[in-house]
């Protein structure tokens, strides 16, 4: 299925959870996840299944003033 991941089209297996997505992306450090502009608490990563067309944003802290 197709989703939008940080603004870019991304192909995923059907029925992926956020936890599985994160595991495959190999992301370091602290991050937060939003799907269709709703924040997904860390405790719900394993129970939240992604759907075709989901708009996923994964953000982190970077240098800024």
């Amino acid at each position, binding site marked *: 299925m197709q989703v939008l*991941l*940080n*603004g870019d089209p991304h192909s995923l297996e059907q029925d992926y959870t956020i936890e599985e997505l994160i595991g495959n*992306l*190999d*992301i*370091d*450090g*602290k*991050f*937060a*996840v*939003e799907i269709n*502009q709703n*924040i997904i*608490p*860390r405790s719900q990563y394993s129970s939240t299944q992604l759907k075709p067309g989901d708009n996923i*944003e*994964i*953000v*982190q*802290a*970077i*240098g*800024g*003033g």
Partner: protein
Amino acid sequence: MPDVKQDELIVAGTTYSSRLLVGTGKYKDLIETQNAIETSGAQIVTVAIRRTNIGQNKNEPNLLEVISPDQYTILPNTAGCYDAESAIRTCKLARELLDDHDLVKLEVLGDEKTLYPDIPATLEAAEKLIKENFKVMVYTTDDPVMAKRFEELGCVAVMPLAAPIGSGLGIRNPYNIRTIVENASVPILVDAGVGTASDAAIAMELGCDGVLMNTAIAEAKNPILMASAMKKAIESGREAYLAGRMPRRAYASASSPIDGRFF
């Protein structure tokens, strides 16, 4: 001599011995960021919230590994937001990212050339964030009426600009900054516009509770040395403010006695 060590900054109930707040942008690399921040003695450090680089720079360390939330109060900003909605969204992501951390630096910009804040949008965002239990440190213009309005709304600190962000033009309107300080019962921090150590000292001499800066340190030829200079300037300015400066006079006043002259 009064114990200046007892003179601490309190923001949202937390006590800080340093009155210098620093940003983490524009540094050459994370090592320089870390060194500059350590040297500055800052305890509150701003960060921006942006998309994670997926599949790129895998070996690049994460900012929060270098500037640890265990050691510093991390202050996520809403830099780059031009409307209330994106600022609120950024704050909510930051709160999740930083494990329910609720202290944020709110800035809602209105113009790319000056990076001046959009005040109506900032008010709207501040009101909604406060309702959602965020502790808002707000970036605003050096307008005493607006500064008071933000305080009345419940912002935990009001942060007027001294000059446009990244301009290094120094305190453009010291009289407004002083008026804002006089009116305030929350901390007033100059945020943006400081270019060099004397600017920081002037802000503190005006009675500001602290100064937040980024470019003045990061864009110095030697950022680590400038971080050290800024630390001293903030301390000097604060001590001078507490000491109470002499009155200004139009004409000279001899330092040596007139009496007892033998000539």
